[in-house]
């Protein structure tokens, strides 16, 4: 691996590494607009210009400079600073400076770099070039061509990531602007990324439009629960209200992208379909009453006719806890996991990010099933129900009844979940669980990567985190798994289940870890409706 020198700091990077990345590794921030780690090099913003000390000469753009032995650059010489200042001046020449109404304010690179590298005094006495403003270019996007600095990130995104290529540069000279063909609209499912990658306010999101100034938002790293892909996200929220999800870079999962369905996933946090209170036989009840009633109901039936259903929408911790509760208190009861596709809910599946399986933790539930061969799958459960062996179902976040339909007539159901569905509506006892944004835990994505979710919001209503709800149910039955918090639950889980062996929340960090197993789980065939 070549060793390059940046501002006198020597650093070893893989051959071909871009100097912006190399500098970042060495701890130097090279300002840039057009460069994006997951897009091709355009080199047109000229902001990343650096001075070559050795292995070349003059000023070169860092984004088009590849690490090679003997290369030494400076990112802080007076000349480099002058170039940045001048480039900023040029960029702002025709920029409308409508920061007050621009949603990008606060996360705009023009602002940031201006403060850092700008000239601070205007020399502009000439009129600015006017361009198209406020154009409706897609279901989720607004385009303001005046703010555009023609970095062409969005063009390259359209060419290289989605392959749709709607956005283009039109005209030339300082009339260059981004736009789409008249009558066309951006219709792919990754529009939000265009607003994300736009370093200025040219492309902004309609969903977030004028909702909040970004500097008010708190950010919590989490994982998207919209499908099995498990895109890394950042939950942007303020005072208990989520305003948007943003993708978080994780090269192993989602690079820098996420789909629009996932991006709008926060809208169901406060939806009418949330379960906020415990219900017993259709009547609202205190949570403690609900748990007592559930325990009593479980004790009142023959243990062998009870089936516990692990949820593919529940965290690993909760599934493990439910399994432990079942094994410790009702050893004769059956434990099942269901793959749980919701057929038809999402039809669009591509080779980019979206998965047909809309459950974020299928692989986690499956890893548990692999650990304990006695855990049956959805087919086994359907069998058992049809044969009438099951008199009582304990369901964690799963719409079992929705799939079994009338086969499960007469089966008493205890539902632990956050959203109303067929199962929750028909259940005898419903206990409210939190939305993933309201709890700590882990999900295992389709590729078997265990990733943290973090609590961003206070729990709505009486809801409790999945694992805690199960824990309390276990305690009411006699023996809970004995976790005090999510981290402990995960630690116990890691100590017991080989696939998670040795993992801790600290190890998972921001990017997660793959399950420990000889080979990764195969991806499911896309768009194939799964059997319940």
């Amino acid at each position, binding site marked *: 691996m070549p060793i390059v020198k940046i501002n006198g700091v020597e650093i070893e990077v893989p051959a071909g590494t871009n100097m912006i990345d190399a500098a970042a590794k060495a701890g130097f921030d090279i300002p840039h607009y057009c460069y994006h780690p997951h897009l091709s090099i355009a080199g047109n913003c000229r902001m990343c210009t650096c001075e070559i000390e050795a292995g070349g000469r003059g*000023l070169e753009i860092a984004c088009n400079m590849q690490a090679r032995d003997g290369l030494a650059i400076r990112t802080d010489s007076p000349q480099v600073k002058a170039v940045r200042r*001048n480039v900023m001046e*040029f960029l702002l020449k025709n920029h409308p400076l409508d920061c007050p109404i621009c949603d990008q304010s606060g996360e705009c690179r023009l602002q940031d770099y201006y403060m850092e590298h700008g000239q601070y005094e205007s020399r*502009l*006495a000439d009129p600015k070039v006017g361009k198209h403003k406020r154009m409706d270019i897609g279901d989720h996007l607004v385009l303001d061509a005046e703010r555009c600095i023609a970095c062409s990130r969005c063009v390259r995104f359209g060419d290289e990531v989605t392959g749709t290529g709607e956005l283009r540069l039109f005209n*030339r000279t*300082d009339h*260059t602007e981004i736009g789409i063909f008249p009558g066309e609209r951006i219709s792919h499912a990754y529009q939000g990324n265009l607003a994300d990658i736009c370093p200025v306010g040219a492309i902004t999101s309609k969903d977030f439009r004028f909702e909040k100034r970004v500097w008010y938002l708190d950010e919590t790293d989490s994982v998207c629960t919209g499908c099995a892909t498990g895109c890394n996200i950042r939950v942007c929220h303020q005072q208990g209200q989520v305003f948007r999800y943003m993708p978080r870079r994780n090269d192993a999962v989602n690079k820098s992208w996420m789909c629009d369905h996932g991006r709008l996933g926060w809208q169901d946090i406060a939806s009418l379909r949330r379960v906020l209170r415990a219900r017993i036989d259709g009547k609202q009840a205190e949570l403690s009453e609900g748990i007592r009633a559930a325990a009593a109901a479980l004790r009142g039936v023959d243990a062998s006719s009870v089936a516990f259903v692990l949820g593919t929408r529940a965290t690993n911790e909760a599934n493990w806890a439910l399994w432990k509760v079942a094994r410790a208190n009702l050893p004769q009861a059956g434990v099942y996991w269901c793959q749980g596709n919701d057929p038809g809910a999402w039809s669009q599946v591509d080779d980019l990010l979206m998965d047909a399986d809309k459950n974020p933790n299928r692989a986690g539930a499956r890893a548990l099933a692999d650990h304990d061969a006695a855990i049956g799958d959805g087919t086994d459960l359907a069998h058992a129900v049809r044969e009438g062996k099951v008199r009582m179902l304990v369901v964690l976040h799963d719409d079992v009844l929705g799939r079994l339909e009338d086969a499960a007539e007469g089966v008493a159901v205890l539902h632990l979940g956050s959203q109303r569905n067929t199962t929750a509506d028909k259940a005898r006892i419903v206990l409210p669980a939190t939305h993933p944004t309201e709890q700590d835990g882990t999900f295992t994505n389709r590729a078997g990567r265990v990733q943290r979710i973090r609590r961003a919001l206070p729990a709505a209503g009486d809801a409790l985190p999945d694992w805690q709800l199960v824990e309390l149910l276990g305690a009411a039955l006699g023996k809970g798994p004995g976790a005090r918090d999510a981290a402990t639950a995960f630690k116990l889980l890691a100590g017991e289940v080989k696939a998670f062996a040795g993992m801790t929340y600290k190890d998972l960090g921001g990017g997660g870890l793959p399950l420990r197993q000889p080979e990764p789980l195969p991806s499911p065939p896309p768009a194939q409706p799964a059997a319940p």
Partner: protein
Amino acid sequence: MDVPKPRILTARWGIPGSHTLAVAQEHGAYTALRKALTMAPADITAVVKASGLRGRGGAGFPTGTKWTFVPPEEKRGGKPVYLVCNADESEPGTFKDRYCIWNDPHMLIEGCVIAARAIGAKVAYIYLRGEFKYVKDRLDQALAEARAAGLVGKNILGSGVDVDVWTHQGAGAYICGEETALLSSLEGERGQPKLKPPFPAVEGAWRSPTIVNNVETLQAVTWIVEHGADAYKAIGTEKAPGTKLFCCSGNIRKPGVYELPLGYPMMELLNDECGGLLPGRSLKAVIPGGSSVPIMTPAEVARATMDYESINEVSGSYLGSGGFIVMDDRTDLVDALANLLRFYAHESCGQCTPCREGCGWMYSILTRLRDGEATEADIRVLRDLANNIHSRTICFFGASAAMPVQSFLKKFPEEFFARAGVGVPDDWRPAASAK
């Protein structure tokens, strides 16, 4: 100056019907090709290299050396090699290629085939600027004749060499004269320059190795292959052998294209070939190599000879593409610079920041200056902008736009400051009256 003025490139010019295959062959066309077909490609390259031929497009890079940059076949990974002839003649002040093709299309075709053979290309494209529709028609006609005669296409003259030559018409973009932009345009994209590295010789059109040569260069190649490197070296100067077509325009009696050996004194070009200035006029300034090179003062003109080194030594300017624009004392230099900047502001491809925003900005300042509405501070901003654009862009266009501004402001500051209503400030010329 009594130097021989051999007609190498213009040999067949003026002969009636020289554009037809029959007349051209009568006057020696395609003899070089026949000779080249007998040579190994490497030998052709060696001859060209030995001749010291430098690219006539403006940069003056040795052509033979450029050809050697094409990766050998085993390193190409099966990618083809392309030859592209740059006939996108759009530098203001330059108009030679049009006459080259118009008068002697077969010499270009011959050159293309020879060069293509040298670099191993199977296809050569002649990129003509969009306005040269009628030139393209004549070239296409010549090509058709040559193709019919087996001089172009598959199995040329039974040698087993395949070289197809196609014309490609641009559509009015100065920037397409820049080689990477030309390749973008050839690929059917916006004619925006590409990042270097990789250089076109390594990764050019369709990401394959591509050699881009000027029309005049390829025609010179024809002559070199026919007559040998030594004959070519005998003409011109040591560092810049051969002849060059000079496109003379502006306030002179006899504008036009003149073929002269390199190293010809500039003053004689002006006074003898061009017929001197119009009666009663005196020389104010000369732009020696197309609009984008720095301007020269009369004193510099008197000392310079027409070759790459001398011009640069004497005035810091460049020979460029040989567009020799003469301005006499009637010329308003502020207006002239505004005129040039309007050209650059109009032609910037809009890709990278300094040139995209800077050219328009410089033009608007110059417009105000021309109209007497600018101040001294504006002139300083203008110079700063030019400095900030120069060599900070993807392609050479930025420098092309900046150099006139820099040189006009440096060499003729009186006119500009007078327009702002002030004298030249003391700090403007830092002891640099060295010129």
